[in-house]
């Protein structure tokens, strides 16, 4: 029987640990256990056979680390690993029919970008390769296990599913706090894995059975798939020089009984568990009635840390990462200014958004490329789920791939073309779909018409195997200024769609006030009406105070905010903000040359305000030359004299930056031409704090900095120089191992673009080193780089 069917009918048992047994049979520390598949196949087969005799149904092949990073003879290793397990089945005298061989796929041992240097797609390729061989070798399923990072887990699942048709089981390793090493809680993991369409999921390693109980509880509450539980035999300890685990087989199996009752479906063990553990677990749990988890109706979107549930109380989706009607945002997209987008994301999070919509579509840019960098950069610094918002299928697919979690997808509509393109993507990658009630004929004028389209989408999604819990219908808010009934129809649609279809709903709220004065007030009143009707998600601007007030008051008035605590918190935040502002203003007035003062003191908001005040009487260029630059110079000098320190230097630079923002908003054609400087941390190096400091300072001295990031190949540096015509390149390296890459980059630049000057810095560099590798300038700190640029470009 196919294991997919078997797990629906009866309780299956995994085997226990392999490592401990291998060490007992003489595996030396530091040896790769997978090599034993070739050198001592009889030992491996013997272990498998003993597990079968103990009652295991699923043998985990000895292939935990079998990937192309570790083995050149990968095919040979995987075939041997699977064959050793199959051999044991041949020798087994019990029921051979209900025994399966799992190809074991563990983590690669390398961290993915942005925390590490492994590219997501490269990780997918490595897993793909192993999975492909596993299927050829005759394994019955792929077990992805001991995963402690959601991103790598996703890469492994995609790799396994894209290159094989084998069932995919996934178990993750949680720490004592019930989180994966990179931060995810169980609900986030479940949301992502069920979205990706795995066949069974669960937990293994790190914890003993006692500590796993609470995690299994969460799985039973949220997972609709069979739950696998493979704990360690407690914690390792040393007795007379030998490693033993502190939970014995008797105790282990007793806790496994509780776990089975709690919802554990497929049971087994991990580190430290041996034959007895499996035998006793099976004996004690065999007769507990077996039930597969029921369907769980939670609508979940997730980030790399947590899931956001839609349906319990309204959630806010921040709409500001979108160029529509925003000249500054458009300019940022054209200049490839990712930092601007990140700042929009961070500020919306601070204002209370639960999910962020990401739309970077602009006709004149490469939307796919921009979307990929926006998604990867945003998810590296923010822990909110993202809503991928694009009309291009290619952009959508690429973004869904690299997204670390279960995203929201904006959007699908009832037109044939949209259904055909978007639904397969949602099925493959998982996601919560925003479904717009737009048909071939446009937007129906009646609630009934909109309901019909929603129904069509839900039915079509079902054909693709997409549950309606993953569909959030947006019945569209249209300008009430052009149609008196538009608000009423939208609200009626929400009601109808929720009642009859049982799906969640969403609205881009602010469309309602289009064409009217005092839009915020109209929006906020409409928002309250919509919430009262049952709206689940509001796509809106979290910076709109009236709308945020509506949201918080609605929560407390509808009994969703216990003791009105969140409301009180929100409201008191409003008053303190004003108090602080007025105090600062008083202080400001006392300062005569206030802009210089606020920059020197590193006061960001004040610098912006002071610059604005100055601009009322001074020309933009004069504000720069007579105030901002002298202030920065003052700080720079104090830094060089060690009267001020690096953090203060940066505070002032940031303050100057916000003053520049004020100036820039007034400057157009007469903007001074800035010189361009390309900067990068070289290939192999992932430390970029020094480079970032240099960037901030250079920018605030007026340079246009093209920041290529960290771990940058020399070719990319050359390409950037050619593309931008920059005359100066700054390179950073932290370690001796990467200075070589710096030398190669300089060599390439000198050969291809000899007019470019290079300035280098970083922890291990010295003047001597810099001379040796042919750099034009060694800068001991960020300030020296600025001084060098100033003198070089003055020539």
């Amino acid at each position, binding site marked *: 029987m196919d294991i997919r069917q078997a797990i629906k009918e009866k309780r299956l048992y995994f085997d226990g640990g392999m490592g401990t047994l291998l060490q007992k049979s003489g595996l030396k520390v530091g040896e790769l256990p997978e090599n034993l598949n070739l050198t001592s196949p009889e030992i491996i087969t013997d272990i498998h056979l003993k597990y079968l005799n103990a009652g295991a149904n699923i043998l985990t092949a000895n292939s935990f680390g079998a990937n192309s990073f570790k083995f050149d003879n990968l095919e040979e290793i995987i075939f041997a690993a699977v064959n050793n397990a199959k051999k044991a089945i041949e020798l087994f005298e019990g029921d051979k029919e209900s025994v399966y061989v799992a190809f074991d796929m563990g983590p690669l041992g390398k961290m993915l970008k942005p*925390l590490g240097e492994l590219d997501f797609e490269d990780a997918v390729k490595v897993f793909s390769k192993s999975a492909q061989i596993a299927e050829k070798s005759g394994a019955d399923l792929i077990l992805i296990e001991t995963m402690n990072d959601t991103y790598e887990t996703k890469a492994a699942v995609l790799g396994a599913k894209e290159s094989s048709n084998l069932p995919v089981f996934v178990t993750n390793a949680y720490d004592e706090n019930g989180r994966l*090493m990179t931060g995810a809680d169980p609900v986030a993991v479940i949301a992502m894995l069920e979205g990706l369409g795995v066949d069974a999921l669960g937990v293994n390693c790190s914890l003993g059975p006692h500590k796993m109980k609470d995690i299994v509880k969460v799985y039973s509450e949220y997972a609709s798939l069979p739950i696998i539980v493979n704990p360690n035999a407690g914690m390792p300890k*040393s007795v007379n020089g030998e490693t033993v685990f502190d939970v014995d087989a008797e105790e282990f199996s007793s806790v496994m009984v509780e776990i089975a009752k709690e919802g554990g479906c497929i049971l087994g063990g991990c580190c430290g568990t041996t034959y007895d553990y499996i035998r006793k677990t099976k004996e004690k749990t065999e007769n507990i009635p077996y039930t597969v988890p029921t369907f769980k109706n939670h609508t979940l979107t997730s980030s790399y840390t947590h899931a956001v549930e839609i349906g319990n109380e309204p959630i806010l989706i921040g709409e500001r990462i979108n160029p529509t009607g925003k000249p500054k945002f458009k300019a940022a997209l054209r200049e490839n200014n990712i930092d601007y987008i990140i700042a929009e994301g961070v500020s919306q999070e601070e204002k209370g958004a639960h999910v962020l919509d990401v739309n970077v579509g602009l006709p004149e840019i490469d939307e796919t490329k921009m979307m990929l960098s926006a998604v990867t950069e945003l998810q590296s610094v923010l822990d909110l789920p993202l809503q991928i918002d694009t009309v291009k299928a290619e952009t959508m697919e690429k973004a869904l791939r690299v997204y670390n979690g279960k995203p929201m997808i904006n959007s699908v509509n009832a037109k044939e073309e949209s259904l055909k393109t978007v639904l397969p993507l949602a099925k493959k990658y998982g996601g919560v779909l925003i479904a717009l009630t737009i048909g071939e004929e446009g937007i129906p004028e009646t609630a009934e018409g909109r309901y019909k389209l929603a129904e069509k989408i839900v039915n079509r999604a079902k054909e693709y195997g997409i549950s309606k819990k993953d569909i959030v219908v947006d019945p569209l808010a249209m300008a009430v200024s052009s149609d008196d009934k538009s608000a009423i129809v939208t609200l009626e649609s929400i009601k109808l769609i929720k009642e009859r279809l049982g799906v969640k709903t969403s609205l881009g709220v602010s469309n309602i006030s289009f064409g009217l004065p005092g839009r915020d007030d109209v929006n906020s009143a409409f928002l309250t009406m919509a919430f009262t009707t049952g709206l689940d998600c509001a796509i809106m601007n979290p910076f709109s105070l009236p709308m945020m007030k509506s949201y918080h008051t609605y929560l407390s008035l509808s009994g969703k905010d216990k003791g009105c605590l969140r409301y009180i918190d929100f409201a008191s935040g409003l008053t303190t903000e004003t108090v602080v502002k007025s105090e600062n203003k008083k202080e400001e007035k006392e300062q005569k040359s206030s802009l210089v003062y606020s920059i020197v003191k590193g006061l960001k908001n004040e610098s912006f305000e002071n610059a604005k005040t100055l601009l009322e009487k001074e020309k933009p260029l004069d504000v720069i030359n007579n105030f901002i630059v002298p202030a920065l110079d003052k700080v720079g000098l104090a830094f060089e004299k060690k009267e001020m320190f690096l*953090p203060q230097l940066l505070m002032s*630079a940031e303050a100057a930056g916000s003053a520049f923002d004020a100036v820039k908003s007034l400057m157009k054609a007469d903007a001074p031409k800035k010189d361009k400087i390309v900067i990068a941390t070289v290939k192999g190096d*992932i430390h970029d*704090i020094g480079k*970032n400091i240099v960037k901030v300072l250079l920018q605030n001295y007026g340079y246009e900095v093209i920041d290529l990031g960290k771990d940058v190949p020399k070719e990319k540096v050359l390409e950037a120089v050619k593309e931008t015509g920059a005359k100066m390149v700054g390179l950073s390296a932290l*370690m001796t191992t990467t200075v070589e890459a710096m030398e190669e980059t300089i060599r390439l630049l000198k050969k291809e673009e000899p007019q470019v000057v290079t300035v280098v810095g970083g922890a291990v560099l010295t003047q001597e080193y810099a001379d040796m590798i042919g750099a034009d300038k060694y800068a001991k700190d960020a300030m020296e780089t600025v001084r060098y640029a100033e003198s070089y470009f003055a020539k």
Partner: protein
Amino acid sequence: MTTSLKLLTASAEEITVNKKEAFRYMGATGKSFPDKMQEAYSLCLEEFYKNVSYKACYRKTEVSFKGDGILDLGFGEFKSLSLQKNLEGCKEAYIFVATCGMQLDRLIIRLSKVTPWRSVVTDAIGSSAIECFCDFLNEILAKDKELKPRFSCGYGDFDIKNQKNILDFLDAYRKVGISLSESYMMTPKKTVTAVVGIKRTV
């Protein structure tokens, strides 16, 4: 013979971060610092506390000297005159890895995009904190033993490439989530591995 792996964690409050060292990492040396720096430090320390997760994993091993700077540490041979000198007279040593955790890396990345000055201060706090956590671990190991000063890859002629062997020996990826890049850099960034010679048991 080698003994089993032991894990150790500490809460943020258990480790007192050495402020002077943190200031030194920010390039601030001297006797007094401006109030602005003190404020910045306190502000960032508070956020650091919420994001640090100290974890360590260690194991005892035998040391044998093969001459010419070649040492057998029970899980492989190492060539380093400096390490040989450091371990002089030791028959055993502890091997450990200690980290401030992944969430701190995230925080520093985030700050570098939003408020760069805070990323610099937080980075410096992390650099100081990991050393303090190593001291904390050292103290525990030194309970009934006299220990040599800890010795890390990259000191003297003890090649940074040995990092791989040490992390494998400690099963560091599975136990505490440490991974190594091709250029031998560890993630999370605030992570230290070391060899600590055992002079004698007291």
